[in-house]
């Protein structure tokens, strides 16, 4: 049960992009197109899972004072693998993502998971955590790039939605649009999370109230006029 929680916490509750707000550079830079988002998300997930597994497996061998450089070497190795694979098999995607593939090394999400999770926990937990966090990141950038691609170039996955009929707002795929869209998506997620927390608290409170009410001995019945003037229970 707790294993499943390790997997699912990255998707919504501790979503790295929308809740923790880390790993922003690729989130903003490459979300002009859905293919980019899928490619970036899967590349980062691969690096995250593999480096989490390796760091967790070797966590007892890293001297505490130089653990950061050790993590960086592990992460850089997997990033290099991703870069060479993309350059070899997906040249168009490699061209589109450009400098942001090598920059996976300094993606705060990966470093944060290595430091906060993988260097303390077992291999299986770390792998699940990596998968969850990576998919959370992928999901978030897919949502953002879907919004930006539809509004900014009126297409999905590079395919035009209709021929003409809608003049896309160029600015959404340019720099300012990226900031506006990400700001609004984070605000929306904060709003939803706050509302959920509020409703959960309300449900909990009403349950507690009902339990307390049913446990309490019932007061004797009073004449109606006197009962109406008194404030209600609780």
């Amino acid at each position, binding site marked *: 049960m707790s294993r499943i929680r390790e997997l699912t916490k990255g998707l919504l509750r501790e979503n790295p992009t929308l809740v923790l*707000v880390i790993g*922003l*550079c690729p989130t903003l830079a490459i979300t002009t197109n859905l293919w980019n988002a899928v490619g970036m998300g899967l590349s980062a997930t691969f690096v995250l899972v593999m480096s989490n597994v390796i760091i967790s497996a070797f966590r007892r061998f890293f001297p505490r004072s130089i653990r950061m450089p050790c993590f960086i070497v592990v992460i850089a190795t997997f990033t290099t693998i991703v870069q*060479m694979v993309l350059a070899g098999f997906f040249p168009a995607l490699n061209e589109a993502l450009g*400098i942001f593939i090598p920059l996976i090394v300094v993606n705060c999400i990966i470093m944060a998971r290595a430091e906060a999770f993988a260097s303390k926990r077992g291999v299986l937990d770390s792998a699940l955590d990596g998968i969850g966090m990576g998919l959370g990141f992928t999901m978030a950038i897919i949502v953002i790039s879907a919004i930006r691609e539809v509004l900014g170039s009126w297409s999905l996955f590079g395919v035009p939605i209709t021929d003409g009929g809608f003049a896309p707002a160029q600015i959404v795929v340019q720099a300012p649009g990226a900031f506006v869209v990400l700001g609004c998506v984070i605000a929306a997620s904060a709003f939803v999370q706050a509302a959920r927390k509020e409703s959960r608290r309300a449900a909990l409170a009403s349950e507690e109230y009902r339990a307390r009410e049913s446990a309490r001995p019932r007061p004797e019945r009073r004449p109606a006029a006197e009962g109406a003037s008194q404030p209600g229970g609780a």
Partner: protein
Amino acid sequence: MEYFRIGFGAIFVYNFVLAQFLGLCPFLGVSKKMSSAVGMGMAVVFVMTMASVVTFLANLVLLYFEMNVFLGITVFILVIASFVQFVEMVIQKVSPALYQALGIYLPLITTNCAVLGVTQLNAARFAHWDVVPGFFASALNGFCGGLGFMLAMVLMSAMREEMEALPVPRAFRGIPSAFLLTASLAMAFLGFSGMI
């Protein structure tokens, strides 16, 4: 003229934060107060300049041994990390006052994408230049990129200080409103696009 194009482009047209989306985590994290924004900006100018210089030399060695494809990322990030560590130790020893001002920001800079970003951009852009002009172009690109970062950061912190007093809807408090402010800054900087 070529150098002017590089410098002006790095500060305004291809501003690292507002046009290229590099270094956003420190940009949002440390821009709440003007004084810390200036401190962080200075640290970034310094580290970006020096990292450009150091990785240019490292890249020469890698190119000589033809290992830049599969060792480029690892070597660059390690050089930057150890350089930052070294700078921190030197500053602590030489100027405790400056260490007080910059010290807390220096470790953060290792994972600043702008620093690794500028070295990667330099490697792609100036590697086929002659060694001496390439060296100066890389250093200039790093220095001016850092200045652009500092400019964006100081502007942002001034706006955020004013923003503190305003009634913002609850969901937009904090990071989302900071993003909307950044968007307005980015829109202003979009005016520079096409100049170079």
